[in-house]
């Protein structure tokens, strides 16, 4: 089964930039998937069971926190590594992040090099 990364952001630019940053991994057989909101993300997590999710926190309706909590607790997908993406300078509720079971949080604008490095580390490639 191939390695999968799910990119979740409601902003098209961010999705594009995250995708572009991670594209190099496609040559190494990693599948990149994209979701544009919380519901889509939750459905994709359930069906794809990705190894790694980059999940925006601030999304309408279903926030990143909600998606993470449901994936980890309701769907029981504790082995999906979830990175919450939060805007730099914006107050981030770390406690909430811990409570919903997120594995890591990174700030936007993200550093492309560390994002890619993190993805490789999580996927073990």
């Amino acid at each position, binding site marked *: 089964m191939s390695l999968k990364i799910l990119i979740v952001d409601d902003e098209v*630019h961010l999705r*594009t*930039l995250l995708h*572009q*940053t991670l*594209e*190099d991994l*496609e040559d190494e057989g990693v599948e990149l*998937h*994209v979701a544009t909101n919380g519901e889509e993300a939750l459905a994709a997590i359930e069906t794809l069971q990705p190894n790694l999710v980059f999940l925006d926190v601030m999304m309408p309706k279903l926030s990143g926190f909600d998606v993470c909590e449901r994936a980890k607790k309701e769907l029981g997908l504790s082995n999906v590594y979830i990175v919450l993406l939060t805007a*730099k300078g914006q107050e981030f509720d770390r406690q909430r992040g811990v409570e919903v079971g997120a594995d890591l949080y990174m700030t936007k*604008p*993200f*550093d*492309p*090099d*560390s994002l890619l490095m993190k993805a490789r580390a999580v996927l073990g490639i």
Partner: protein
Amino acid sequence: MIRNSLKQILGAQNGLRPVIESLAQAMGAPIAVEDAAGGSLFGVAGGGERLSVAHEGKQLGWVSGLAGAEAVADLLRFMVAKEAERKALGTEVLHLYREVNLIYSFSEKLAALLDLERVAQLTLQEARHLIVATDGAILLLDEPSDALTSAAAFGDELPGVSGFARGKGIAGTVAATGVGEKVIGVIVLASTQPMAYEARELKLLNTLALQTATAIENARLFERTVQAGHERERLLALNQEAEVARAGYERELSLAATIQADLFPAQLPALPGYDLAARSRPARRCGGDYYDAIPIVSATDPDAVLLCVADVSGKGLPAALLMSHMQATLRALLGRTASLQELAGHAHDLLHGSTADNKYVTAALVKLDPATGRASYVSAGHINSLVVTRSGDVVPLGSTGAPLGLLPPGLPYDTTMIDLRPGDCLVLCSDGVPDAQNEAGDEFGEARLTAIDACAGVAPQFDDITLLVFRRLASIGCPS
């Protein structure tokens, strides 16, 4: 390199696949798209012209079909070009993201540094991540001399180079024309390869320079604070040393004072027919004055008594020791010498032989025969003693020789003979008495010996004061 592939354009999440499907349907002929290696991306190749899809000279794939292949190829070429544009923009934005993050982490790292050199090194290190350079330096301006000295540098050209100065060369011109509140130095980045630096890089370097300037000022402030702390510690240590020395001196003084106190006679000998009183008050805790009254027990003078007031040179422990020496000498010689002048001569020789050249004692010595009131008087360089007669006349008694121990041995001492009649008084004192001054500096003088404290008032006593007075009483069988 920007990735660009037909596979992506025709990927599951891209809207182009259904467009080509409907195009093929409309044309009524199958269309096939292959990637550069000939792998099928869409449809099945069924003959017709095989058209290339390339971008900037790079073969991306092929389109083939009996009809409509040209239109699909054009569409794919257009999409490839659009995708390339989008990715170029994306790359540019990601580059900016990288810069923003570098500047963020630079600020965080800077905030943790308080050492000027490390601040400069970190700044150059971060600058090299952002801007291509083979050489670089941070030169700090020395205000009074206008010299620019290197705080950190890298590359082959700049390290070790000195002689930068405000107004000289490129760095010097930047230092001279710099904008902002205050120029503290110059940051230099250079390339030995031909290099066209752009405004973007200038802006970045400006950002770094502004941040590093603040950090350098902080580091300097910190250094000054640390130095002030060290100075305080040093002064504290000095203070403690002084305190230890003072305590040592204090111990010495108290030892000297103890020695001295033991030298004064605990009790004056009873002298029937005479009133005898003596008192010594050192200016400081340990003085250089001495008085004594010793009965001379000898075959020739069974009742005689030696009275003495002396002033030894110096103060403190050395003076106390010299005084002890003087007392031992007097007592040793007492009864072994025929006359007072002989005693003085011997004492002089002994003191001279056993003390340093600068040590000496002035002394007023009186040998009294109480029964007759006859006394011999020797003054070894001592200040005048006084005979105050019953009628109130004052007769000064001058020096009869040099101070004991000062000049070479073998000096002669003269003797003055005195006849104390009933009611007469003999006053021996140290120079602290006539020299006692009040706040205005007026001396007490010999004439006012009885009211020293009234004269001095609250002015500090500056020399030891010693007074030995004895009076022949009028009532003991003497004609008035």
